[in-house]
């Protein structure tokens, strides 16, 4: 199956936008991805081996949280997409000088 690689992570895939991966479920496919591209492991997984909190994974059109997470079965014709959670805003302590947000 194919895994679509987000733009900033293509530095770790030789600039490939998609990578072929093997596996019976999403977990195995992602493990195959980071096994063949080791620098991706730290970008996608935390020290406990769990997907980082801001990393969302879609199998075709579905968020794997609702389909069995890493145990979601896959087929050779499936597509996995990696989508970061995006949030922010002018809240909390300032990172700059006085008066900045």
């Amino acid at each position, binding site marked *: 199956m194919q895994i679509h690689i987000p733009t900033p992570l293509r530095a770790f895939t030789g600039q490939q936008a998609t990578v072929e991966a093997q596996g019976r479920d999403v977990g195995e496919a992602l493990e195959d991805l980071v096994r063949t591209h080791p620098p991706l492991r730290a970008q996608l997984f935390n020290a406990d081996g769990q997907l980082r909190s801001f990393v969302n994974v879609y199998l075709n059109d579905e968020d794997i949280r609702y389909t069995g997470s890493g145990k979601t079965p896959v087929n050779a014709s499936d597509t996995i997409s990696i*989508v970061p959670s995006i949030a*922010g*805003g002018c809240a*909390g302590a300032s990172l700059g000088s006085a008066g900045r947000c």
Partner: protein
Amino acid sequence: MALEMGREELERVLRHGEETYPHECCGLLLGRAAEDGGRVVAEAYRMRNANTESPQNRFVFDPQEHFQAQRAARARGLEIVGFYHSHPDHPAWPSQFDLDHAAWPGYSYLIVSIQQGRAAQEAGVNSFELAEDRSRFLQETIAVR
């Protein structure tokens, strides 16, 4: 590294911020990676601020909407090279909250300041990259063409 974008696209971002004021606006920067490692914006794509509890000082993408937008951009041959959002009545400078919720290094994080409902023009526009160790933002230049 630098972010390159057309004046028209920058204006689109500023108008978005003015329209959503006093709430934060947010969106995608679609384009391509430049050969020198920078990023070139072809289109500023509006997203809905899905934060309903505190939209005046926080924003969040709906994950499904983000996924759909990413797929649509890919179908058009565009990549997501960064994100933008506004700071109503605050400077265009990242907050600790921005840092805590940043995604990966390699994106541009564009922030615009909207003061009393009006864009602060280029003085109120800054763009940043996330440091490789995620410890801080690094300001990048914005080349407006």
